[in-house]
């Protein structure tokens, strides 16, 4: 067993330093060392997308990244996209459109959709489908998920500047 290494990065706005084995994946570090269990593990080979998180603003599969590679990065998980008071517009849209059944793929879907809408708030259905095709949902058949993401676009558009 290799010796543990320290790694420091920002998670959901908080600076953390953890000791990890070099072979530990980032998703295992988040789930088991930092106890952020909202990020799920579905395949551990980068196909299902359940572990999708945001690393420096980009949607990344946390099962394909080693924890040590996160050194100096800004990591956002589903917990960082949530608050206690109310659902965010994207989360509320998922609920309204019944885009959730068992809930296991949902955090990965929402982080992926958040990354997309943050960059492309005017994307069309084809683009949503293209981006979400890296996240597998076994329950919903995707139709409602695509509708939910499209319906949440307005919340990501920058407000018009008044003349």
């Amino acid at each position, binding site marked *: 067993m290799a010796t543990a290494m320290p790694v420091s990065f920002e998670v959901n706005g908080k600076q953390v330093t953890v000791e990890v*084995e070099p072979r530990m994946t980032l998703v295992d570090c988040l789930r088991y060392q930092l106890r952020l269990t909202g990020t799920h593990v579905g395949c551990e080979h980068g196909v299902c997308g359940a572990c999708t998180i945001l690393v420096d603003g980009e949607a990344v599969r946390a099962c394909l990244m080693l924890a040590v590679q996160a050194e100096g990065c800004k990591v956002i998980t589903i917990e960082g996209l949530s608050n206690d008071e109310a659902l965010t517009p994207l989360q509320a849209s998922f609920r309204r459109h019944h885009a959730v059944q068992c809930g296991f793929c949902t955090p990965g879907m929402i982080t992926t959709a958040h990354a997309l809408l943050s960059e492309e708030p005017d994307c069309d259905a084809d683009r949503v489908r293209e981006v979400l095709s890296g996240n597998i949902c076994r329950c919903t058949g995707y139709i409602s998920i695509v509708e939910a993401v499209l319906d949440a676009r307005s919340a990501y558009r920058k407000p018009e500047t008044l003349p």
Partner: protein
Amino acid sequence: MRNAFVGSAVERREDLRFVRGRGQYVDDLRPDSLLHAVILRGSVSHGRIRSIDTSAAMRIEGVQAVITARDIPGGPPRIAMRLQPLGEFKPFEQSVIADTKVRYVGEPIAVVLATSVAIGEDALERIVVDIDLLPPAGDCETSAKGDRLLFEELGTNCAITFTAACGDADAAFDAAPYVRREKFRTGRHYGLTIEPRGVMAQWDAATGRLTVSGAAKVPFFNRRMLAAQLGLPETAIEMVENDVGGGFGARGEFYPEDFLIPFAARHVGRPVKWIEDRRENLMAMNHARQAEVDVEIACTRDGTILALRGHADVDMGAYMRTNGAVAARNIAQFMSGPYRIPNIKLRSSLWMTNKTPVGTYRAPGRFETDFFRERLLDLAAKDLGIDRVEFRRRNLVPASAMPYPMPTITPFESKDELDSGDYRITFDRCLEEFGWAAKAKLQGQLIDGRYHGLAVGCFIEGGAAGPKETARLEINPDGSVAVFIGSSAVGQGVETVFAQIAADALEIPIDRISGVHHGSTTYVSDGYGAYHSRSVVMGGSALLDATKNLHDLMRAAASKRFGCVPSEISIREDRIIGPDGVCATLADFAGLTAEGIFLNKKHTFTYGTHAAHVTVDAKIGQVEIVDYIAVVDCGRIINPMTVRGQVIGSLVQGLGGALLEDLRYDEEGQLLTGSLADYLLPTARDFLNLRAIVTDMFPSPINPLGAKGAGEGGIIAAGGIVANAVANALRAFGVEPRELPLTPQRVWEMVEAGRSNRR
């Protein structure tokens, strides 16, 4: 207050935690001093174990124990069947861990307990297993030859043959003016859940109590089995249902790990958790669907179906698992589906093979038979020169024939009947919504390089398996009411729909239902769980009984308080009113609790019609769904939003089984599809234009809710629809699909074969 939550698209309660990543799945649990289990699985499909050497693995720092068959006092127990537990199956049941032979790639051989999963996996590589290889029986044909026996002492690989019968099929065939005989096959795929399976067990030596987390589907049955295997009283075991990342029939049955992990926790006196990885999941979770039939249909010349006759061979894998016989049995029983066919003789033989054992996957036997039957109907209609739409409409079971008897299954002598409905209304609605009349001219047309094809077909879905379900209501100190239910949650939204049912029954606002607690063995006295589309029908009906019982208790308590007789008490919403208008509220009766049950021997039958428009690129064999509509009548609807979600979700699973998903083995019985890069699941880009219409025209007469099980409305017909649409698109090449899935390669090969036949 007359509530109407039942029938409304109430947003789901469980979503509030799921969309924020606050669900709690079994792998989210991490108690102190936890050990992680990893499992060494057989890497060959058939062989005799000579020795297992675990000494090198034990020397790795962090490895606490390695468990093999010889560590289990009295030898490893077998896993008993839950459904159709016939004596014939006993010798084919699976041992919880391999002791003398391995019979499929993926069979558990040893369990390593280590301080981390990674260390456990390091240790797996140090275990040396010496196996004498035996030639595998990789398919039904090889299995039937009988020279490669999985259980030598039994002298056969055939576990049983079911027969479905009604009328006199042989006589009908002898006299029939038209007969057509065909062979079809369905591929092997399964109810892959996006959350892999997991079990965590904690043993409390001081009190002799065992807590098992990760339970799903049938926790009470599994507790009975585990208690017997471990020599514990049932009451010493608590099965805890966490959030469950999908069920689909496959998750929650009793698997080898459901013994091994609790056993390990007791063995070492520490909490032990096992989480399946995806490769394991592909080789260890119940497989499904693989069957081949040789079936014939007899008709009059004007298109009245007279009889069905034939034989199915079902590839069971290496052992009879808890519900392994269901699909094979249903293949015999559901071949006639929603059609009136007076004479039937269908046999279904169960063959043991050196592959992962099978169990149910959503619509067991129904997905398969809809493909077989609907293909046969299209072929017969073509022969007879009858419009395929009219042919189906003419032969649907008419409303006047309800309840309509299904063929009798032997052994078991099980009889069943279709409960209610007018199949032709749904059929015509589907054609109308689809726009069949306008689209029919596209049939077989080549437009912009793609061939167009249409298909229509029908299905029935069984639901509401008995014998019983239990529900309990309890009044909280603040006057809200908690619901406890024996039904299990597998992602279908039970917390929401039971809150709807309870709020309506109690006539209180839905936010006064404090919670719906389900699955775990502590909540009700006896529970049966979630299978056979039963949760809502059975649990919901039990909830109505619990409401009645709670009201009786409230009347009794109030009559004492007010000094009157119970019949003088009336209950209006949350007010309990005595003579002269004296009044109490629910909160005044805090702590009152009442259980209710629902007993049932009959089944509900949701039914419907699907229609699809596909295009095929004949050059590359690629099939695209242009439009697909499912019209489903499912009795009384509790939540139209979630039932529609069930239809669309299951439809995409069905399209996956029809076009993509395929568990492939090589000749040595090695699984070739060991990752999600090889086993193709539907993605967001595959199937776009899907519509579901759910109606509630005919409530079920067999339960007080009037509800019908409704989890399979999209999946059952998908294979037959897609195959018929492809046949119609490619009629210029004489393509007649006889095997699923319709992968691009398979479609291309049929096109090429058609081209060379034409030359």
